[in-house]
């Protein structure tokens, strides 16, 4: 019974997990407006953008209000790295 409900729970969470966040390689844009929209679509609400080490660091929160740092190459508009803010 427990096994079954766990399986159901896992299965039901898979699509959410798969679409909840942007991934490395996604193109989100080369300006704040585009990137905010693209990241929101990917499930992360942008709080602010910062310059860090020549890249754009977007601080955004996911559906469970967890804070993420999404690094964007300002030239290509691509996501280069994603880190959980700890």
């Amino acid at each position, binding site marked *: 019974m427990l096994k079954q409900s766990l399986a159901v729970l896992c299965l039901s969470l898979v699509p959410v997990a798969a679409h909840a966040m942007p991934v490395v390689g996604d193109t989100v844009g080369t300006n704040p407006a585009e990137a905010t929209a693209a990241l929101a679509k990917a499930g992360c609400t942008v709080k602010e*953008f*910062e*310059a860090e080490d020549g890249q754009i660091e977007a601080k955004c929160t996911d559906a469970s209000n967890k804070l993420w740092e999404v690094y964007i190459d300002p030239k290509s508009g691509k996501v280069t790295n994603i880190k959980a803010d700890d």
Partner: protein
Amino acid sequence: MANRDSSSQGAGALSPPDPWDPLVRASHWLIAGAVIANGLINKPGGTIHIWIGWAVLGLLALRFVWGLFGPAEARFTAFLPDPRAAVSHLLALVRSKPKEYPSHNPAAAIMVYALWGCLVAVTATGLVMTGARSPVTIAEEKAAVAAGDWSVLVNADNHDGGAEMTGFREAAEEVHEVAANLMLVLALIHVAGVVVESRSLRRNLIRPMVFGRVRNK
């Protein structure tokens, strides 16, 4: 009490100088303040953090030059690392019979080099993480991005190193954090060591690093 009196005889005496020379004192406290500010207070990667890091680089360079050309007790030759002597000094301290030395005692000397090693590691990796761009440039970039303008970073011609460079920077970041934390732990041990040594020698070792000798004593 001959030892205690000898402290007022300056360099060449049996005990460390009282006071330490101005450059040693100033660099000591400025670096101590920088470590506290960058390690515990300000925002990592922020403009202030980077300014302080560059200031530490300058202070370290100055101190290292002083280690070659400064007064006798400030020179590296006055406190070369000697692990065996350090251990025997610590053992003497446990038996509360430490000897006096004209500069740092052998255990303190090891601590000095360990702290310098950490400072070099932290500042060098900090430079790698920021691409060695000046704090002025970084402040301008941050201001522009905060105002919604990303073009400054595109024109800045950096981060074209690809995945390899990203890996290198991430490794630098790891070393930066580990060395910084190690340095904070070492600083605590250093402070504890000064307290223990002061009690054991029945002499305030902090004062010569602050004001120097009280003349009418």
